[in-house]
């Protein structure tokens, strides 16, 4: 990448930063300007991410050395297939959620747009950075913004939930720092690509220290990813957040997953021995446990937001277990699943609120209905209700359609991308030479999760949308419908264009397995000879 195009890599970080910094000096009353500014920035982010993705697909990983310092001394941003894919996903979610928020949610507290854009900045930064400490910084940016966004609109539940969320994340951040310190103390570098080369050269004496550092670091990421038993805060926090915020939070667990993917392949790739294997087992079993827990949560949920939250856990579990099992095919499948499930959860969070808007505050009615008629069908006779369908008002029809699509996506049923994702995952699991018991368990859990989702979603959907209520449904604004439609449209596109998308994922997985391109782009250039000291030279460094 040369010329002006080269600076494109940093735009996903700078664009939201500058836009929000500009908004800070704008008065709170100039809402329209702020909306325009933030939506414009979010739309631009999609374009930037798309161009980057296209470019990276054509020409391989690209690095951006901040401050023009040589690698590995500079903080390096790296755009490769994986990171640009995550960027694109983030910017799509960001745009749709912001769009949705402008229906009314951005009015429930001051500075919503600034916080939202800064969240996007943090997420984008975490995806782009090739430096392990800079990753910490961006984690903090995105976490801080997420604290702000959760609290947006205040209220008891939000505050209580965020108290847990913040405390746990601060504790996790301290673990992050500890891990980074350990890794730095052994390797002497922070650049991920450089780490990759240095880790393989580590003395066996120092290996335990390094692995301990990686493990502690891993715990920090696993908290973000929402792994059992470190995930109990997640469903509650997401449920407490306002819908557009929860919708964009769908990407947050994926940041943790992304980092685990990135670092596990860079640091403990195919060459490293026992420790990596052990970590994989931890990931696998914790992932399976997370799936199990998520399934229980989906079944146990009394509110749709909790269903969604536990689905997030299930998807985290699937992704982590799949990382634990490994293999290129499975990695490609998990990437596809990652994209699909993220979009699905996001759409679900957006649609829950209008669906529940009509319903009373009550919980979903429990699974068992009154046994009106028994095994033998005698119902039709006793039912005095007229057999004329009630006219579904447009709102309900649209909501119902959207809701069904979300349910299908989550349960992995056709015609949206969830089906392909599920198929690809199981297919990859079956493609192993030996199908271990853990693989069977995982397959069973994938299926069970789909069923549990279906049970919970039909229960909720029937209850909320099909059960006639006295009130007439409230109005549904176009601003709320459009983003949901956009997200579902993307999922439909993923289904139709499954071939090329899956090809992309496979190439991405292959690149993860052979990170040579990444290391070449972002790692140390050539050994730098010590500079002979001289007075500072004026001007930009040559």
């Amino acid at each position, binding site marked *: 990448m040369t010329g002006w195009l*080269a600076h494109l890599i940093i735009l996903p970080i700078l664009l939201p*930063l*500058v836009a929000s*910094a500009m908004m*800070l*000096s704008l008065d709170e009353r100039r809402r329209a300007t702020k909306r325009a500014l933030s939506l414009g920035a979010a739309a631009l982010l999609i374009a930037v991410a798309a161009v980057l993705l296209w470019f990276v697909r054509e020409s391989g990983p690209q690095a951006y*050395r901040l401050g023009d310092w*040589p690698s*590995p001394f500079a903080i390096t941003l790296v755009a490769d297939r994986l990171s640009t894919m995550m960027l694109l996903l983030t910017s799509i979610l960001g745009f749709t959620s912001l769009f949705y928020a402008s229906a009314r949610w951005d009015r429930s507290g*001051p*500075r919503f747009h600034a*916080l939202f854009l800064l969240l996007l900045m943090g997420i984008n930064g975490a995806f782009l950075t090739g430096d392990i*400490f*800079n990753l910490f*910084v961006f984690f*903090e940016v995105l976490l801080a913004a997420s604290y702000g966004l959760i609290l947006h609109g*205040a209220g008891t539940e939000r505050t209580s939930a965020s108290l*847990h969320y913040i405390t*746990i994340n601060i504790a996790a951040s301290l673990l992050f720092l500890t891990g980074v310190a*350990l890794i730095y*103390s*052994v390797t*002497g*570098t922070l650049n991920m690509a450089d780490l990759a080369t*240095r880790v393989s050269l580590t003395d*066996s004496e120092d290996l335990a*220290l390094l692995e*301990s550092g990686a*493990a502690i670091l891993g715990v920090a990421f696993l908290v973000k990813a929402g792994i059992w038993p*470190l995930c*109990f805060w997640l469903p*509650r926090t997401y449920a407490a957040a306002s819908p557009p915020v929860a919708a964009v939070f769908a990407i947050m667990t994926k940041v943790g997953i992304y980092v685990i993917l990135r670092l596990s392949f860079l640091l403990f790739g195919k060459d490293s021995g026992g420790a990596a294997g052990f970590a994989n087992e931890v990931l696998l079993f914790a992932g399976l446990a997370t799936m199990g*827990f998520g*399934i229980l949560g989906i*079944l146990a949920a009394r509110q749709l937001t909790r269903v969604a939250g536990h689905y997030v856990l299930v998807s985290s579990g699937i992704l982590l277990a799949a990382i634990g099992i490994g293999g290129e095919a499975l990695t490609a499948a998990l990437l596809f699943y990652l994209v699909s499930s993220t979009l699905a959860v996001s759409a679900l969070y957006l649609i829950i609120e209008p669906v529940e808007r009509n319903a009373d505050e009550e919980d979903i009615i*429990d699974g*068992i209905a009154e*046994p009106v008629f028994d*095994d*033998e*069908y*005698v119902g*039709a*006779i006793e039912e005095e*209700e007229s*057999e004329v369908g009630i006219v*579904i008002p447009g709102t309900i029809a649209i909501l119902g359609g959207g809701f069904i699509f979300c349910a*299908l996506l989550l349960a992995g049923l*056709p015609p949206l991308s969830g089906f392909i994702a599920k*198929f690809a995952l199981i297919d990859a699991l079956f493609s192993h030479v030996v199908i271990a018991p853990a693989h069977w368990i995982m397959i069973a859990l994938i*299926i069970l999760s789909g*069923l549990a989702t*279906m049970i919970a979603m039909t229960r909720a959907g029937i209850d909320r949308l099909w*059960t006639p209520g006295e009130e007439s449904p409230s109005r549904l604004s176009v601003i709320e419908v459009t983003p949901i439609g956009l997200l579902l449209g993307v999922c439909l596109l993923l289904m139709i264009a499954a071939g090329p998308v899956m*090809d992309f994922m496979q190439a991405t997985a292959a690149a993860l397995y052979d990170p040579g391109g990444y290391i070449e782009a972002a790692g140390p250039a050539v050994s*730098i000879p*010590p500079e002979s000291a001289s007075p500072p*030279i*004026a001007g*930009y460094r040559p």
Partner: protein
Amino acid sequence: MHDPRLLLAVLSLPFLGAMIAAALPQAGRNWASAIAGSIAVAGVVLVAGFYPAVAAGEVIRSEASWLPSLGLQFTLRLDGFTWLFALMVLAIGSLVILYARYYMSPQDPVPRFFAFLQAFMGAMLGIVLSGNLIQLAFFWELTSLFSFLLIGYWHHNQGARDGARMALIVTGFGGVCMLIGFLLIGRITGSYDIDAVLAAGPVIRAHDAYLPALILILLGAFTKSAQFPFHFWLPHAMAAPTPVSAYLHSATMVKAGVFLLILLWPALSGTESWYLIVTAAGLATLLVGAWSAIFQQDLKGLLAYSTISHLGLITLLLGLGSPLAAVAAIFHTVNHATFKASLFMAAGIIDHETGTRDLRRLSGLAKFMPITATLAMVAAAAMAGVPLLNGFLSKEMFLAEALEAHSGTILDLVLPYLATLASGFSVFYSIRFINETFFGPAPVDLPRSPREAPRWMRLPMEILVLACLLVGIVPALTIGPFLALAVESVLGERTPSYSLAIWHGFSLPMLMSLAALVGGALAYRRFGRRLGTMDRSPVIGRLKARRTFEAVLATIVDAARLLHGWLGPHRLQVQLRLLIGTAVLLGALPFLFLGYSRGPEPVALIDPVFALIWMIGGLCAIGAAWQAKFHRLVALSLIGGAGLATSISFIWLSAPDLGLTQLLVEIVTLVLLLLGLRWLPLRRPAIWPEARMPLIVRLRRGQDLLIALAGGTGMAALAYAMMTRPTADSISRYFVENAYPKGGGTNVVNVILVDFRGFDTLGEITVLTIVALTVFTLLRRFRPAPESIELPHQQQRQNEFDRAEEDRSHGDTLAHYLFVPRIIMQWLFPVILTFAIYLLMRGHDLPGGGFAGGVTASIAILLLYMAGGTRWVESRLDILPLRWMSFGLLLATGTGMAAWIAGYPFLTSHFSYAAIPLIGDVPIASAWLFDIGVFAVVVGTTVLTLIALAHQSIRLPLRRKGSEEQASAPERSA
């Protein structure tokens, strides 16, 4: 005319029609039905057009790229069998659409109905035409989905909602199992393509994974075709509008399972497991369905159970595994579709015209609707297997096959008897259906006065009944060639010779048929009267599958809640214990494997002062841990002590910048915590006196102590191991070497912060900004606890005193208290500001920098606030924290972006000397501008945070007056 691409048209037309229908206005009944009807007819025509090619033995395939990397093409495939099936789906579909046009009430939002119906038809066609298994599963799940919508079409009825949900869950579950089965098949054969799979039959059957794959696929087929014990969803699906039942339960939905069994019959059948599982399931279904059908009081209920029974019959035939049985199965599939569709239509007409389907209330309708009655009688006779009707032919074949020995088990022996018995039941309920509806005295007290159905509503029935008759009388001329085609394409070389003649002479099957007919009729004569009083079928009725289903679901949910509660504690403390515990465990594991050792480097001599400092620091830390519960202020000062020890350590360990910064942050944090402390409740003494503390609490504390000690020991051990190892070849070497020559600063730490790693700093000030915004946002809505709304008790007392004394006035105590401090703190303000600027400017070369300077400036402002109070300060100083933040961020970012102009990456620093007379060359680095940005952000954020907190106090009087004034001054000043 057999362009393979036309297959795509056949498949997509219904979906297109569905979309059009969905877009129609609610009153568009005629349009919707007309479009749907023409699409179905067009489909029939298109499929019929493929006949010559199919008849020539060709397998028509149309492929498009879909997921090539996973071995998936979007393939449409048409052979003799699927041709017949597709034609059946479309033809009966057309008739049902015509019927539905008249059945559905004008008030119904029928466009939606036709949209769902067509989409369902499309999905069913998708199953039939799929050329690979995954695609088949795809459409399979789609049929579940659309049947859900169709069954729940009258969703204002509880029964419809429950029925729809049950059908979806049961068939959806089966579909997923089937998908896994397919994936296993794919793994065995290396392909999902149906032709490839069919060709690989022997490989599949010999494979280890055959049995699991078989079971999974059968689960899919059985749930879909309502085989025992999954049959219970079908009767409940009768809550759907009758046209839906007529379609779903004759030619489509339930037949999908049968279709799958037939399709994969060549590949999967012929093993013992196939025989045992499929035959047993079919037989059980046959009997259970037939038995239950006898006792139904609802017309549709009777038909539903009869459907189950006939599906069982087909399954049983397929289970037998002999080619002849397969022929019978295919034949009966078609026959059942025709007579059952017409019977459902009859039931619908009766319901439509009389307002009830209750057999006990209906009677003597033949007088009122003679044509319908006649048609229904013919169809029912076909169902009962009366000669000269199509049902008779396939049932004969069934009975003949039942006589054949297949396995050498007990089944061979009992099968003929059970088959005859089931046939007898079938006769029984057929007679009951006709007799109790059409014969007997005229009905009384019906909701509507019965009359003949409209002409066009009867037409579909007439066509179907005609088909029953024609096939029954001249099978070879009508169905013969098509059946042969289908059989040929399924069985291939194994196609047996069979005859479709009506009369094969007196044979054992004939005798069994006769016995069933006579026996059924006699039994009806004997027991028919008593049926009206029974509310459920004997024996089978006790199974209560539906209630079991609901109970199972409820149990699952309850169990899930219980387990979820156990496995997912929501308490923060537990979560933190788990987090730290996990970290300690995982952090320690590598040492368990690789062993712990200190490094080889010698340790430095212990500096007694340093040790002393940490004696103090450690005492403070432990003291804070000890005191934090009841003596918060004390704990706060002790934390300050520990922080001071940390600062000194930084300085001792050659980090003057850190020491300075830590000190400054310490001060601000202390004030911050004190500001927060004002809003906390007074701590009550312990609930339990130490001695009577419950055991569980003791245990929990012991556990906490254990984890805390483990964590502390772990960190200490890690630190020790780290410090005693030789230094790695660190990248900081470069920073030290180049800080001055390339970064233009001698303070390497600062050059790293603003230049080498300025990007981190940019992120860090962003975090500050975000937090300040959040704090500000949150505090705008802040609602204190009731007991902290009042002024602190100290102030209340002091104000009271001021009021009580004659020569004092309100606020005197405070004024006197702060009299001297205010003067000093006020004059220190410019001094501290100067110090702040000094720290900022020297940072690049010596300890200091933007952050330290910014915090110092904030402390200056903070002191003013403490000395003068909020109103005093804000009436004098116009602090615009948001502007500071905005300016700082933009300056820092802008400095970074300026490098773009010269074509360098973001944050590339610029360095030059400005020649100033008298003073000489003054170095000016862009990094310094960046640091000013940091300074501004830090000032803005710290001040905003503290002010927002402080403002809560002056908002209180307003609140106490009950005023809901929400605006706060920082916002106004922003």
